[in-house]
């Protein structure tokens, strides 16, 4: 998970893999993604409890499908 000065630089990188092209995205895309609730919640005083509740909720949703 790295930054490059431009799309051209990323494509020129020795470890560029065209099969993962969909993961080449503008900085703003990742800035938004890493602004999600999970990332902000890490500073909650009850983060582990919050995380556990998130997991339980996902499990309940999966069971309900």
């Amino acid at each position, binding site marked *: *998970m790295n930054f490059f000065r431009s799309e051209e630089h990323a494509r020129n990188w020795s470890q560029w893999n065209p099969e993962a092209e969909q993961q080449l995205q503008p900085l703003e895309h990742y800035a938004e993604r890493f602004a999600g609730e999970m990332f902000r919640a890490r500073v909650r005083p009850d983060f582990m409890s919050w995380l556990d509740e998130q997991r339980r909720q996902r499990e309940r949703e999966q069971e309900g499908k």
Partner: protein
Amino acid sequence: MADLETQDRAYRNINQYFIERGFGPHYTELAADLGLPPDEGRELLREVIESGIPAWQHPGTDYIVSFPPFNSMPTQYRISVDGKQGWFAQCAFESLAVRWHFPGQTVRVDAPCLDCGEPIVLEMCDEELLSVEPEGVVGYTYGEIGGSPEDRPYR
């Protein structure tokens, strides 16, 4: 297995230690801060690290390597807060999440482009991306974000 309230206290302690120092605590420090015997601190640290968060210890040791968004081991993602350089991000993408740990402060990321070695500089404060040098910076990973499950250094 520690109860969730104890895990909350441990997580909060580790996170705050990173915020204040730029690296993680040894388990004996965690234990002392929480009023536990050293061995219980070691076990509690391992439980938090292995809880499924993208954190990990150096293999075969009790040393914290990474505790997102921070890294104890230096990476190419150097973080400065209000002009003071003192932290490393786990990876490029996690560098974008460091700002949530320093509300109201300017978080700067200095990193080299892995293709040409030339600098990339970002500045953020809370919700705002204040500046990006050069324009057109992109993010890329060739693997699944977080790494493929079989290679992931964490569960």
